[in-house]
């Protein structure tokens, strides 16, 4: 764990504007033998390869989790209608004619009636997910719950954390602090392998009898302890029921059912995150380059530092809770099951005496810091991009850093605001109301600092900056709509409604995910030496931005009208609901499907620019932080010579300096800088915007 091993060889160093010699960084004669493909790209210990592995994995899971939700949206928009091509095109035609009607062209169409598929020819969805999940193309309630639970799990633990924390943290953070690699390269590889195992397990749970976990991403007990019981199952190849030796149907073992696999996969995932966070903190503390003082660190590294601490201290309680739930499921204990539990009208065979609330406490002790794990790396990315593209130092860098520390600490003591409805005493809920309101202070401080950083800047609207500017108000909506939820009284009404869904998706989807897109586009030239296509990026941005709001804003209205978040039929049979918000279901679903299609712009761009994007120099954004002083893509060991840091991270537009940016590793000059006058030089970098001098 304390030495490095040979790993990915040097990449071909592109023509560098700095004119370094190629292997100058290799200061102790480690010979550059060619590594096999496996050692270079699969079992690599290079932090950059690992970062990109996490990026591919995480982005794929984000899209997969999104697709699960697109399926659920069909059920919500057109409850109990078979999901077939025929029905989908009927609804599409109806919508098309309705739009024409509103434009004054043609008649108002009649609402189509669903066509039942022929039972002898199973439709595509039935063949894809099996007869038990989607009989005749109609989603069962259990399958709807599976999709909901897995959407949450995959998006949070397999999508955003790997991309925001592991991918960007692994790729960018060591270069930003001037390190040659992470502190423990082989431990880093171990984290990827554990993550891969956990992902594999989680995916496999879709294929076991009974399907994947279906108790929500929070796995509340006692529901989660008793769900997915052993059940008869069918041979995958012959389709026959499997019989036991005693002539009765054999039962699928409990430890291989969906919820058990969920727990085991989560244990691997948590261990992977723990090892990563140990690695990140050690790297930041130990491997900062010469002159990289704490307060010269880019804000992004600070966010990674605090995020790593949150993961380190908040994840283990969930691991403990997961082990206890596994005990409940496999050994028959009732740590989380109360006395007198009745399931389906019969007393549960457990002995009781456990506490369901204990699970909620342990889960949300992780769950709330997890929210900040999701958002802090995003804030870091946005801070880098805002400062770079407004050509200004971050306003209030010190306060932002101190704010992060306060945020990190407070996030550990606000968890019970997820549990106001559990009937805790007023004293306890007052405490959590207080801390929840206090935590909005550092959050607003950071967000305000970012907004003020824009003020008076010479803003370049590159696509990363477009995402960043969209991030600020949309994350603001997410944050501010959370304030009513901090108080016990309004939360009693809003809890478990679509208002909650809208609130936290505004924080995570147009918040963190926008920041992730911004980060991918911002660091893409560093990782590949090539630019992503700006036109495709802009198309992707505008479609996603508009559709994202179409999806989530109506949910505020639905939630305030009383729509419960777990309604299988979209609330149609829910008596307490104002029915005049039901029509939004169709609108939201269609916006979500269109948004799914809009991601194609990004997927195509991301994959093709890798090979065919326009080549750019090492520092196309004219940024100041250290990663832009390394070649693109950085070779093994990152820097051509060990960097020394002379100044803070955001020295943009320094008065009297010949350029409007001063890299951190540029030594201070003794002579007085001369003022450049005359016409602006040509657009050498080919960015489509003039350099700001």
């Amino acid at each position, binding site marked *: 764990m304390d030495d*490095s091993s040979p790993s990915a060889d040097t990449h071909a160093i592109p023509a560098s504007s700095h004119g370094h010699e190629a292997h100058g960084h290799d200061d102790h004669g480690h010979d550059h033998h060619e590594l096999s493909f496996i050692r270079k790209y699969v079992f690599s210990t290079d932090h950059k390869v690992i970062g990109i592995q996490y990026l591919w994995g995480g982005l794929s899971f984000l899209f997969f989790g999104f697709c699960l939700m697109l399926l659920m949206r069909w059920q919500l928009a057109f409850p109990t209608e078979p999901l077939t091509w025929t029905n989908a095109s009927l609804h599409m035609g109806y919508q098309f004619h309705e739009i024409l009607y509103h434009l004054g062209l043609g008649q108002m169409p009649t609402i189509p009636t669903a066509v039942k598929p022929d039972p002898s020819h199973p439709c595509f969805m039935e063949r894809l997910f099996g007869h038990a999940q989607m009989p005749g193309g109609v989603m069962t309630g259990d399958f709807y719950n599976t999709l909901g639970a897995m959407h949450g799990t995959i998006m949070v633990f397999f999508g955003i954390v790997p991309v925001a924390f592991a991918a960007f943290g692994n790729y960018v953070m060591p270069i930003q602090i001037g390190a040659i690699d992470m502190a423990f390269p082989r431990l880093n590889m171990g984290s990827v392998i554990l993550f891969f195992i956990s992902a594999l397990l989680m995916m496999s749970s879709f294929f076991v009898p009974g399907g994947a976990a279906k108790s929500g991403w929070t796995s509340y007990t006692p529901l989660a302890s008793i769900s997915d019981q052993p059940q008869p199952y069918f041979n995958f190849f012959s389709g026959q029921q499997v019989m036991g030796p005693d002539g009765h149907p054999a039962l699928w073992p409990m430890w291989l059912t969906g919820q058990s696999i969920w727990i085991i996969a989560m244990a691997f995932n948590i261990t992977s995150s723990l090892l990563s966070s140990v690695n990140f903190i050690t790297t930041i503390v130990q491997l900062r380059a010469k002159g990289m003082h704490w307060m010269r660190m880019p804000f992004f590294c600070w966010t990674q530092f605090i995020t790593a601490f949150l993961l380190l*201290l908040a994840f283990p309680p969930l691991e403990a809770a997961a082990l206890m739930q596994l005990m409940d499921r496999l050994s028959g204990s009732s740590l989380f099951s109360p006395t007198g539990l009745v399931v389906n009208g019969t007393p549960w065979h457990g002995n009781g005496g456990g506490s369901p609330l204990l699970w909620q406490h342990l889960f949300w002790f992780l769950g709330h810091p997890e929210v900040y794990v999701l958002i802090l790396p995003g804030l870091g990315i946005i801070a880098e991009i805002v400062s770079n593209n407004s050509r200004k130092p971050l306003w209030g860098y010190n306060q932002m850093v101190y704010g992060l520390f306060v945020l990190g600490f407070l996030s550990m003591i606000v968890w019970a605001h997820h549990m106001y409805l559990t009937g805790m005493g007023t004293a306890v809920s007052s405490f959590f109301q207080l801390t929840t309101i206090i935590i909005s202070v550092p959050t607003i401080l950071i967000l305000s600092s970012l907004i003020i950083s824009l003020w008076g800047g010479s803003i370049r609207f590159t696509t990363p900056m477009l995402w960043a500017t969209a991030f600020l108000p949309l994350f603001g909506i997410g944050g501010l709509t959370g304030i009513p939820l901090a108080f016990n009284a309004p939360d009693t009404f809003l809890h478990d409604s679509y208002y909650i869904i809208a609130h936290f998706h505004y924080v995570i989807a147009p918040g963190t995910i926008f920041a992730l897109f911004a980060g991918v586009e911002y660091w893409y030239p560093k990782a590949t030496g090539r630019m992503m296509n700006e036109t495709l990026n802009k198309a992707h941005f505008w479609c996603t931005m508009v559709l994202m709001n179409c999806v989530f804003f109506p949910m505020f209205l639905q939630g305030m009208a009383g729509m419960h978040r777990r309604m299988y039929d979209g609330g149609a049979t829910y008596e307490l609901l104002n029915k005049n918000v039901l029509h939004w279901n169709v609108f939201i679903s269609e916006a979500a499907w269109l948004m799914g299609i809009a991601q194609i712009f990004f997927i195509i761009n991301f994959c093709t620019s890798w090979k065919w994007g326009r080549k750019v120099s090492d520092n196309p954004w004219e940024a100041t932080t250290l990663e832009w002083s390394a070649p693109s893509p950085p070779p093994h060991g990152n820097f051509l010579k060990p960097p020394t840091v002379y100044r803070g991270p955001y020295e943009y537009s320094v008065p009297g300096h010949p350029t409007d940016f001063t890299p951190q590793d540029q030594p201070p000059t003794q002579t007085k800088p001369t003022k450049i006058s005359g016409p602006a030089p040509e657009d050498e970098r080919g960015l489509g915007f003039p350099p700001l001098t």
Partner: protein
Amino acid sequence: MEIPYTLTARPDTGLYNGKLGIWLFLASEVMLFGALFTAYLFMRIGAEDGTWPQHVLSVPIGLTNTAILIVSSITMVYAWVSLKERNIHKYRIFLGITIVCGIAFLCLKGYEYYSKYEHWGLLIPEAKFAQYEEQLKKMDAEITPIPSLHAVQISGDLEGWKPGPDNNYYMTESQTGFTGNYVLAPVKAFHPYGYKAPAGTEESTEETITIPGADVERAGRFLPYYGTYFGIYFTVTGLHALHIIGGIVVMTYFLTIGSSLYKRNPEQLSNRLEVTGIFWHFVDLVWITVFPILYLT
């Protein structure tokens, strides 16, 4: 390409990488076991009066295990000191003792687990208890009234089984609504080689008791299903045993294959051993917390 500060401390932090890494890892371990201890408190506070089992674990065994772990911590330090003195022979001896201590701990723990597996308990409603009281006392059963449940718990050095077709069927899981009979006998009535005298034979007639399932509220071995105390006991000690196993694996590696590093870079080996030692002390410390809260209260 070498990662800096793997061997020597960084001047401004005073730590080498591995040492910082293991302390951070231990911080997360504190949270892991902290969560379990919190769960223990939560359950103990929430238990009905009188239902929380007390003194069901053997204090002498627990005390021995505590002593074993403390000794192993001391020998661990000596192993590290020997490396610093560049005395590989002494290092091997002390590390060997540490590993043996770890294995001894696991053996005792395994014995304790086995005795829990052999132990059983039975809950009989107060109203129906009187008819069995005399016979149970003759059998030296341990009788604990639990007023809050209006029931009496019977346990002690007794074996119980539900006679199956071969009259030889152990109780394996908690049963409610079982309509057959439970047959109980003192452990000493059993043949030492595991042969069980079937009910009604000469060997066991004097000291067996048959209780109809209808009179029993709950029955089972002292395994996690029997109650939350045993659930949390097995979770905490099982996780702790996994840590011991992990430590033993790592130490065995440094005793065998890993010690070849001594020839190339003894300082690195001693750093690695120091990091392992810090982990081992932590595992020891967890046990020192487990012992009073599970054994002594």
